[in-house]
């Protein structure tokens, strides 16, 4: 993985000392809250419902074991013994004291981590496919490009005060695991007819109160032009994006107002002026970054491991986990392991300090010292020998990290919601907990099959509800929490936004409502090969409306 050079180390160290000074001045009364707020936000420090919250960047989701151990230490010493992995591959601590935050940042700097680009109207922490560099279906490793984008974007003077926050995602495989179509800029590594790799560039996607699927403004961008092209997009947005209305300030609104084609032309015009300037990437620089992500020394192993096969035959629980939570590795004899942070009744994405320490130990023992954080709020061991899988599974199981539910209805994405968040209208986590208990039977999960359920506690959509196959949005109705349900969303190559099924459900009614939706699907699908999403696309919303609210005439009468 990438290691800091002297420049990286210096700017992070200086940033810690700057923030230490700012906190000292705030506590001494030399800065007012109005003056201090933008400074703390630029260091990832929010003020939430019950306490401060510190959001720490995990660039493109990659962590080494030393960094994970440091997060465990911070959780134990400065927080309440746990952290929350987020949908942007970051981690949040929910209870830090203001005076401790500079020390926390210093601890992070010691392991090449920080909280820069986790808040404010800047280019945020870049996200990427969690299986980068190891997936069997990958065209090219997106981490190299995510790192190049990180270096270009950090403290970029022209883009430190954008109209609004700006999120970039990179994926390197045809199977989009980074949700690039719902990002401000989404980069897909593609191959052209000549066999060269480059980028398909998507802009103007996003969720929040105005969910929009982005548009592809360039089908193939040669790699050496990546930064100049991104600069052209950002410059066009920075000049023309609205600053008069926070709800109209994201690039998606500008792209919609301008038209995708016209916006693309404006970017191309700007790009022509700068494409051969200082941002042109020399091959030597690409190669330099590439070397940080050189494949580790894999052992030459047969792809079929007899011990692994035997363990599966002897232990059905292990066999099920292996079937559900493993992903094909590009190297024979190895597997990609997904450790679920969604145990039955758990808070999605939460991990205790003890669990973090265990994940670090297991990374060292079984995965060449590295883990990944996924935007689905799980943890990945990218490099595990198949012969080690049974031992790894046993250790994970002992810490409730081996739930076999990857990609199933209980693998829920959930924002912190009204249990923590200042912006939320309703709680997310308790709904996720009840759903995961309701849908805990493995046979039921298998019967339902591939189903993504995402929950957001407010319209800002941190829980990505618009792109869940089933989405749940918490709303406030006169001081009471209600939940609006959508069906048919997807964040993948076939990206789509969910459609609302009808009136929102109360806290008591939301789990039965989801159960009704699932039963409607199971009763009406053509066969098991028709996934929930396929069924919604074929049948539309009406069967769910009817099952939830009664036949159409009755609904009309009730409305009248």
């Amino acid at each position, binding site marked *: 993985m990438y290691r800091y050079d002297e420049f990286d180390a210096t700017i992070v160290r200086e940033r810690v000392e700057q923030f230490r000074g700012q906190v000292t001045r705030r506590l001494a009364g030399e800065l007012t*809250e109005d003056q201090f707020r933008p400074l703390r936000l630029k260091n990832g420090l929010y003020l939430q419902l019950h*306490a401060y919250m510190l959001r720490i960047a995990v660039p493109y989701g990659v962590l080494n074991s030393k960094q994970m151990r440091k997060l465990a230490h911070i959780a134990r010493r400065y927080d309440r013994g*746990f952290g929350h992995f987020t949908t942007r591959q970051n981690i949040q601590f929910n209870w830090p*004291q203001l005076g401790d935050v500079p020390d926390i940042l210093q601890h992070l700097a010691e392991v090449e981590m920080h909280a820069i680009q986790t808040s404010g109207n800047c280019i945020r922490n870049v996200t990427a496919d969690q299986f980068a560099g190891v997936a069997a279906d990958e065209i090219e490793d997106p981490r190299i490009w995510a790192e190049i984008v990180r270096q270009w974007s950090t403290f970029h003077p022209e883009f430190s005060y954008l109209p609004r926050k700006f999120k970039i995602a990179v994926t390197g495989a045809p199977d989009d695991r980074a949700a690039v179509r719902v990002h401000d800029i989404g980069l897909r590594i593609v191959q052209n007819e000549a066999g060269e790799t480059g980028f398909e560039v998507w802009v103007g996607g996003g969720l929040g109160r105005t969910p929009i699927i982005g548009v592809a403004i360039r089908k193939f961008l040669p790699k050496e032009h990546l930064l100049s092209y991104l600069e052209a997009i950002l410059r066009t947005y920075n000049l023309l994006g609205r600053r008069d209305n926070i709800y109209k300030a994201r690039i998606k609104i500008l792209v919609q107002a301008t038209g995708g084609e016209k916006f693309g032309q404006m970017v191309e015009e700007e790009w022509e002026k700068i494409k051969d300037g200082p941002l042109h990437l020399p091959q030597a620089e690409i190669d330099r970054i590439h070397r940080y992500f050189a494949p580790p020394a894999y052992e030459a192993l047969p792809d079929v491991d007899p011990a692994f096969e035997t363990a599966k035959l002897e232990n059905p629980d292990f066999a099920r986990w292996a079937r559900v939570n493993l992903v094909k590795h590009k190297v024979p004899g190895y597997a990609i392991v997904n450790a679920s*942070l969604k145990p039955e009744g*758990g808070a999605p994405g939460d991990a205790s300090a003890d669990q973090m320490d265990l994940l670090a130990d297991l990374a060292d023992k079984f995965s060449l010292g590295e883990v990944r954080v996924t935007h689905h709020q799980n943890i990945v061991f990218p490099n595990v020998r198949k012969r080690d899988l049974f031992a790894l599974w046993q250790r994970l199981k002992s810490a409730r990290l081996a739930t076999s539910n990857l990609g199933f209805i209980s693998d829920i994405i959930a924002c912190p919601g009204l*249990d923590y968040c200042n912006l939320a209208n309703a*709680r997310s986590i308790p709904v996720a907990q009840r759903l995961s208990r309701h849908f805990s039977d493995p046979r039921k999960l298998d019967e339902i099959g591939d189903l993504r359920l995402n929950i957001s506690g407010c319209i800002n959509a941190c829980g990505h509800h618009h792109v869940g196959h089933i989405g749940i949005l918490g709303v406030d109705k006169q*001081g009471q929490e209600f939940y609006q349900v959508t069906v048919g969303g997807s964040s993948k190559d076939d990206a789509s936004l969910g459609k609302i099924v009808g009136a929102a459900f109360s806290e008591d009614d939301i789990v039965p409502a989801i159960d009704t939706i699932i039963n409607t699907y199971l009763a009406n699908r053509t066969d098991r090969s028709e996934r929930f999403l396929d069924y919604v696309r074929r049948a539309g919303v009406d069967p769910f409306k009817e099952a939830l609210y009664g036949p159409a005439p009755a609904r009309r009468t009730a409305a009248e």
Partner: protein
Amino acid sequence: MAMASQMITANRLLDGAVVYFTAGKSWSPNFTDGAVWPDKESADAALIESKESVKARIVVEPYLFDVAVTEAGPKPTSARERIRADHKPTFEPDQGSWTGQISG
């Protein structure tokens, strides 16, 4: 409709903990210590007074919120303020989830 009674809350500067403005012009983490203002005039005046604590670096961002006055005492009318008054998430602690003592 008659205006609801109101209370004043803020977050403490040092740790962000939820606090309530009391009749004695101080701050308490206990919801039940918070003073209730029955009308807009008294609530607005108290809010101005409470902001002295912002200058004194005790709290940040004080604001008024609605409460229903019942025989058992005042109750927040919003889910948000009901949760804040408890100083913790509403779900039970789990192995991988929140633990520890509530600051007070």
